[in-house]
């Protein structure tokens, strides 16, 4: 292989990106060396097993990926703004819509939510950490390295271009030669390991590590939503693992699962992909529902309306989300019986979600509402998500779907679900729990600008796409003719897209502004309205052991109960006992490095390199197994000092 085949060449956009990536890396290396931060980076972050720090790392990576996926989206919108545009060629456009979809779902939405779950859930249930802190670090590093492997395709070897769904035979060797599609398969495979481990980890954490008195039906709604999400992850991700592995066998080892030769069945890929893909929709939307429930309840100063209905709705979704997958390919031709059955199951699954909308409305009813930015995002969610939901029911009707299928109507629908559901929740949750992570709030005034610019941009971007879809504009096309008459609405949509980009920049500015000027919090209850245990910590940012003394829960909304009973949250000196905590470990970091070597080798079909990487992974597993790793104790003196208790 020649160097000009190895690196992606010929496109000025990519040369520009090469230069900016190079400069950023040099800048970071210089900063770390000049300010002598290497030691700090290694001991405080790269080897940490603390759920709060891992959560912050997840969120930081997700914001980075939101930027990458967002730039992809804007490039697409520029190309589509005018008819017969020459801005991108068809191959480049295909690559960008593939990476946009994949990155936004797998490397932005999921890690953002998992990051918030990491930060909040152990605090919310009164635990010191997750059940398997070391495994948590492995989860983060495999996700991170999977994301990096996928992103490397952009400058080395070429990006995948078969769409985020990677339908066969398009994604096969004949129509997608080269390493691009292999990056998709291996990047997702490695990141998927991390997601599955997260699922197991948080299931056990929520089931076994709750503070005394917190029965299942006293758990906060967000904890419940995380629990249900983890159940779906545990049973859905193995399906993706297998589907990706089978396609990898097709591409690398000449198997015939989905190929046209050897009697393979290309439609089976779509079937397996959506068997995972539909539960995946609920994986990214249930935690969002959980967060909105917390935020709406907090800022309405009322306990959540219909708590048990909310929980049962989610439990039903856990099983039901596995029984609707065929609605993603009604037009494949499985016959009227199959389509009718899945049409009905799809319409039924709208009911539990509808129940929740009413729960949120009734929670606000007669509440004393504070219109903070997290609350604004939650209100924006309700309005916009209903549009996504109603158009979803339209699409659920198989016969009607034959008209909507593969048009911009569908594109607009799922952006209304995923942006209004997941992205709004990520912003709302990030702002809401920001003081828990960093000890200060994001500026509210700038935050309101972000909200309004983003919301207007979002609707200006996607409402025209509903109309374009009904007017017959197909999705996944890189250009269209002037005669189609779609130019004006597309231009409008592009303007909306750029407004969202502007909102993102204001958000980034808000990070900087608030870091410099925001008032530092003194108490754990930053908003003054906290209802759940994460707001009951003594300092704004909880110490690494979270709670000096494990709290006891007497009711739902435990902090409200404690406030009512005038409980002094400051621990008593006599109650302080040493605390057992897990050791930091560099092994997960090295394990992920070996995963990268293995993945990179397989992408280019350099099997020796793949084997070297996998041997490395096994060595790290063995090192871990033989390490007695019994953790250490935080001394009473250190706790007293941290809690500022004087003798």
């Amino acid at each position, binding site marked *: 292989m020649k160097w000009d085949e190895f690196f992606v060449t010929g496109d000025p956009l990519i040369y520009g990106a090469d230069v900016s990536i190079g400069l950023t890396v040099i800048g970071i290396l210089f900063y770390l060396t000049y300010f002598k931060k290497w030691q700090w980076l290694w001991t405080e972050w790269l080897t940490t097993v603390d759920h709060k720090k891992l959560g912050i790392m997840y969120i930081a990576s997700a914001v980075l990926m939101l930027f990458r996926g967002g730039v992809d989206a804007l490039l697409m919108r520029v190309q589509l703004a005018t008819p017969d545009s020459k801005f991108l060629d068809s191959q480049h456009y295909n690559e960008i819509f593939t990476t946009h979809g994949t990155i936004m779902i797998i490397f932005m939405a999921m890690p953002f939510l998992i990051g918030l779950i990491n930060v909040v859930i152990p605090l919310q249930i009164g635990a010191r950490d997750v059940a398997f802190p070391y495994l948590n670090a492995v989860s983060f590093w495999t996700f991170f390295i999977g994301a990096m492997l996928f992103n490397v395709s952009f400058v080395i070897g070429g990006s995948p271009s078969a769409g985020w769904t990677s339908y066969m035979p398009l994604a096969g060797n004949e129509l997608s030669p080269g390493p691009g599609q292999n990056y998709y398969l291996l990047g997702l495979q490695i990141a998927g390991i991390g997601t599955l481990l997260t699922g197991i980890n948080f299931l056990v954490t929520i089931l076994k590590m709750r503070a005394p008195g917190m029965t299942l039906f006293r758990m906060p709604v967000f904890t419940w939503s995380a629990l249900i999400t983890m159940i779906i992850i545990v049973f859905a991700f193995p399906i993706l693992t297998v589907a990706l592995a089978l396609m990898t066998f097709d591409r690398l080892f000449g198997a015939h699962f989905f190929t046209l030769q050897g009697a393979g069945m290309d439609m*089976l890929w779509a079937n397996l992909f959506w068997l995972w893909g539909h539960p995946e929709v609920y994986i990214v939307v249930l935690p969002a529902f959980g967060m909105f429930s917390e935020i709406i309840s907090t800022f309405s100063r009322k306990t959540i309306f219909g708590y048990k209905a909310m929980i049962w709705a989610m439990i039903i979704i856990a099983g039901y989300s*596995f029984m609707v997958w065929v609605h993603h390919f009604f037009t494949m031709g499985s016959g009227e019986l199959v389509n009718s059955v899945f049409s009905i199951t799809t319409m039924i699954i709208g009911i539990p979600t509808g129940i929740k909308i009413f729960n949120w409305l009734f929670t606000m009813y007669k509440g004393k509402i504070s219109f903070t930015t997290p609350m604004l995002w939650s209100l924006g969610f309700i309005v916009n998500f209903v549009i996504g939901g109603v158009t979803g029911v339209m699409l659920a009707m198989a016969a009607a779907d034959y008209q909507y299928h593969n048009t911009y109507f569908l594109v607009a629908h799922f952006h209304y679900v995923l942006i209004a559901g997941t992205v709004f929740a990520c912003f709302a949750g990030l702002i809401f729990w920001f003081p828990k992570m960093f000890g200060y709030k994001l500026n509210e005034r700038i935050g309101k600008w972000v909200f309004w610019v983003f919301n207007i941009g979002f609707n200006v971007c996607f409402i025209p796409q509903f109309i374009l879809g009904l007017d017959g504009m197909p999705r996944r096309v890189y250009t269209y003719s002037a005669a189609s008459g779609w130019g004006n609405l597309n231009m409008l949509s592009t303007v909306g897209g750029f407004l969202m980009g502007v909102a993102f920049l204001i958000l980034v500015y808000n990070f900087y502004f608030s870091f410099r000027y925001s008032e530092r919090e003194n108490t754990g209850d930053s908003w003054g309205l906290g209802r759940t245990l994460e707001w009951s910590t003594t300092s704004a940012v909880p110490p690494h052991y979270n709670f000096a003394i494990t709290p006891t829960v007497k009711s739902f909304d435990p902090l409200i109960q404690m406030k009512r009973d005038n409980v002094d949250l400051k621990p008593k000196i006599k109650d302080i006992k040493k605390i057992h905590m897990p050791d930091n470990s560099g092994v997960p970091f090295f394990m992920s490095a070996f995963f990268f070597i293995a993945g990179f080798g397989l992408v280019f079909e350099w099997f020796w390199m793949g084997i070297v990487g996998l041997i490395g992974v096994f060595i790290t597993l063995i090192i871990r197994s033989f390490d007695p790793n019994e953790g250490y104790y935080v001394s009473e003196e250190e706790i007293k000092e941290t809690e500022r208790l004087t003798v």
Partner: protein
Amino acid sequence: MANPQDSLSREHGGIPWKHVIGYLLSIILTALALWVTFETGFSTRTILIIIFIFAFLQAALQLLMFMHMTESSEKKSKLTGQTQTGNILFAAFIAIVIVAGSVWVMSAGHAEHDHHKMDSKTHDMKMDGDMKMDHGDHK
């Protein structure tokens, strides 16, 4: 069985009867599945139903007799055992959805347009769509 103490006190004895019985029943079920498949001459459909029931029974034997699925790690609470059992039951439900769902969806409708059939017999079989496979004896 839900309490580890019970099972342990039972295991103080020398011969682990639970395991021996589980092993013998497994062998019997395997032999029965073979007999049903090759010696009975039932219709294909009946054979498949019976041998899959045997497979699920044998899996249950392993889970209950060998793997202590219902056993709880805590002394007072049965929650862990119930969680383990619920987990496996839900997994079985998902397994049935994945396998039966995929086979159904992938053989309905578009199978009529499928040119990869190995012979006309299987073609007929799939077109019927209801697993009508009563042809031939299987001796």
